[in-house]
């Protein structure tokens, strides 16, 4: 009776784990990008391997075999994410970026226009005060530099803001 239950349980974990293995390996081939393939590899490393080793542990019973399998699960669950992180970090450092990613949108605050406006005024005021306090020659140089630099950054930020604003609307339109 018990052996039948254990067999059914290990069959179930084998089938579900095999499904995850198959889906993960299909994803490794079909997905468009390295950063998308990272997800597929993680599926294989966590769900597939874990479930299949769990099924083997059920078949092993309470013996040394199960202890070894538990050790394998432990090491794979420590080393798998670490290796994935190392590969992702190396790819990021080499300059690879996700597909269609333009800029780090999360780094810019949501109300883009107001922020850039305040930053503009701030830069202008700081430049003005610096120019007032400092000597004439430096004062003549510094505001010119700052006024030249500030509109550029403001333009870049508004560009990202408009991108960020347009992207979700197109997505929602596609969904509806």
């Amino acid at each position, binding site marked *: 009776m018990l052996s039948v239950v254990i*067999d059914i349980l*290990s*069959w179930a974990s*084998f089938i579900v*784990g*095999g499904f995850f*293995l*198959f889906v*993960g*390996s*299909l994803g*490794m*081939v079909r997905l468009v990008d*390295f950063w998308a*393939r*990272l997800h597929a*590899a993680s599926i*294989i*490393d966590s769900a*597939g*391997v874990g479930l*299949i*080793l769990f*099924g*083997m542990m059920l*078949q*092993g019973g309470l013996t040394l*075999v199960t202890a*070894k*399998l538990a*050790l*394998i699960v432990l*090491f*794979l669950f420590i*080393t*798998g994410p*670490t*290796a*994935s992180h*190392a*590969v992702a970090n*190396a*790819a990021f*450092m*080499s300059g*690879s970026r996700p597909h269609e990613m333009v800029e780090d949108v999360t780094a810019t605050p949501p109300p883009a226009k107001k922020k850039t406006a305040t930053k503009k005024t701030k830069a202008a005021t700081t430049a003005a005060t610096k120019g007032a306090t400092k000597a004439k020659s430096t004062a003549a140089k510094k505001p010119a530099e700052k006024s030249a630099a500030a509109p550029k950054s403001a333009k870049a930020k508004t560009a990202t803001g408009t991108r960020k604003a347009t992207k979700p609307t197109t997505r929602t339109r596609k969904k509806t």
Partner: protein
Amino acid sequence: MFSFISLLIFLCMAILMVRLFAGPTLYDRVLALNTFGSCTVLLIGTVGFLAGRPDFLDIALLYALINFVGTIAVLKFFRYRRLGDAAEDEESIMAPDPEEAAK
């Protein structure tokens, strides 16, 4: 039971082989190789059960650890172009600061 799952693992390894050879960048290949190694660990375990000799699990355990070390070694080699030489590595890690260079 074990023959079924080992055949499935074989199938997945064959599919992973495609990405391993066709991966456009180095990192695709390294990722596929790491996953392939995980599948190999599973295969060694299931084949050991299939043969009635679960002692193969020692080899599987060793393979899991070596696989991780190998992945890190490949990544380190392609980042610094050399293995070992800890003192020289520190020099190459510490890239010249742009602020200090400006000073």
